[in-house]
């Protein structure tokens, strides 16, 4: 009996050694974690930051500052701005296959979920009734200026996509949207 209890204790010890005590909610332990090897003293992109008042590392640019290479957009976010962009704003990029291909690539990431691969308003979100009333491009009076303006500021339910796309990327998308529109008609 004594022997049996001894063995069962041994058995339990062996079993417990085999159980990993990994906790999926916390990161695993690291070798020399506190010696600047794994985590250097610099702040990570989105980490908290004691230097700034709002303790955010990812700060917004200073108001009215202009990033290098960035051209400010002059048309205001209003009905007037929309009408004016529709009439006057022209694409600065050349119309070629390369821009068109890139436009297609970007359109299928940023636009087609709602507007549909063909631009007919039948995207996945539209078919699943998450978003309704997405127009077919052929039913809308749009010019390259107005398309750009809408990507920039959004219109009605569509939000601004300016933070997700660079200027030339927006123009590439505009080029592709115009192609889709012509194909729909």
């Amino acid at each position, binding site marked *: 009996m004594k022997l049996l209890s001894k*063995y069962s204790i*041994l*058995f339990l010890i*062996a*079993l417990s*050694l*085999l*159980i990993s005590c*990994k906790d*999926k*909610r*916390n*990161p*695993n*332990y*690291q*070798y020399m*974690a506190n010696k*600047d*090897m*794994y*985590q*250097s003293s*610099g702040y*990570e*992109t*989105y980490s*908290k930051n004691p230097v700034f008042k*709002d303790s*955010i590392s990812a700060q917004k640019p200073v108001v009215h500052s202009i990033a290098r290479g960035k051209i400010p957009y002059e048309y205001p976010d209003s*009905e007037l701005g929309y009408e004016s962009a529709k009439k006057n704003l022209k694409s600065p990029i050349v119309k070629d296959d390369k821009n068109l291909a890139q436009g297609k690539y970007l359109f*299928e*990431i*940023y636009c087609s*979920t709602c507007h549909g691969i063909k631009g007919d*308003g039948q995207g*996945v*979100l539209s078919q*699943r*009734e*998450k*978003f*309704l*009333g*997405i*127009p077919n491009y052929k039913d809308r009076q749009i010019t390259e200026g107005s398309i750009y303006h809408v990507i920039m500021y*959004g219109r*009605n*339910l*569509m*939000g*601004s*996509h300016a*933070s*997700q*796309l*660079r200027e030339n990327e927006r123009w590439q998308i505009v080029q592709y949207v115009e192609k889709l529109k012509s194909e729909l008609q």
Partner: protein
Amino acid sequence: MRSVLKHNQQKRLVISLFLFLIFTLTIKAQEGDPTKGKELFNANCAACHQLENRLVGPPLKKIGEKRDQKWLIKWIKDSQALINSGDKDAIAIFEEYNKIPMLAFPNLSDQDVIDILSYTDTDQMLGADGKPIDEAYLNGKKVFQVNCAACHKLEKKLIGPPLGNISDKRQMPWLKSFIKDSQAMIKSGDKDAVAIYEEYQKVLMLPFPQLTEKEIEDVIHYTTVGDNEESIQLDAEMDNADLELYRKWIVRFVIALISLILIIIILSTKNLLLKFLSIAMIVLGLTYYAFSWLLQIGVDDGYQPIQPIAFSHKIHSGDNKINCQYCHSSAKHSKTSEIPSVNVCMNCHKSISEYKGILYDGYDKAFYDGEIQKIYDAVGWDKANAKYKENFVQKPIQWIRVHNLADFAYFNHAQHVTAGKVECKTCHGPVEEMQEVSQFAPLTMGWCVDCHRTTEVSMATNDYYEEIHKALAKKLGTEKVTVAQMGGLECGKCHH
């Protein structure tokens, strides 16, 4: 006299015929087709209007009761003209909704507008296919999930019996009184009730006196119609996870048993060879375990922190097929693939303020709605009036980063996503199936190097490197060049 009467009869006939015609005509004109109306509503109005909530424009539920039909037709066809004509109601709406003019819809016929109105004014909800939604089913499902699901499933025993098609087995009045107070029924000596009580270990079912007759009927309707396929599939997945766990435990048990036997042999045998072999096996086993332990230090695959919002990639990227880069848009240009700023969330969630999709993992709609509300709380969105609160101090949502690379290794997203055309899921795994994101790959150096050794550089689509690639392919004497052959194994490429 006779002729007068005849004349009167004739006149009456004509009048009644006339009245009848008018009557049918007006009926025909006023009776809209809600199914067609829904189609038209979704195509033309829904970009700015919802039925229940304010969006860009006002909510349109029961708008036909609020405004005159003729006025509505005029307004929809050309609101600007109506405003200019000085109509008071029109001007008031224009002022209330920030002077954003409503698009004119001259393409809609009067009948179209009537169809739309018949849709907005109907009490019946219409589903995706334009057919009326089974409200009793939805309501019953909700009641079931809140009240019954703790102890019952449809298809199998839990604490209580399975409830699928329960109405085949029992009568409705019996079910009603049992649900309201099962104990009283058992006491009263109802045979069926007592039998169930005995069968289920004399565990009493909670009484539900708060449920109304209709709610109980809805629940029973739900149990009869059954669940949709998706939730059943989820159950199967859960069972697989259980199986995996059982298997692990069995393996552990066997290994522990073997080591116990080996120890007994060592302690009891006098045969030297057997003793030596047993010791050697134990030493080998221990070394194996020691090394596996050492090798997992600092490796975090499976890491699944609890995020501040229960954001489900399965719903967004799996069900709704939103591209990864829609939200993580800086992956194409930057070292970091960013956590989207809240304006990107709000691109959709301005209008999607409640969850209507499949309910996963036992969460209910209220839970998901609450999670969406967390975005609004962070960014200061006033749901009722559909606009941002003024002078609101926005709070950052403190997401917890899942994939952490040690700082002595350099990794650049743009290099992999844009130049290398590597798919997100190659490293991040099937995120579109994850309710909660966990780290998929080990992110060890061996794992990086393996991929660099086997991945071919696509030379056809990359004109920037075209000449270099040609020269390299010539030098190596192959058509295919891997990342490693291009220098992807040099220490300084990642450790600098």
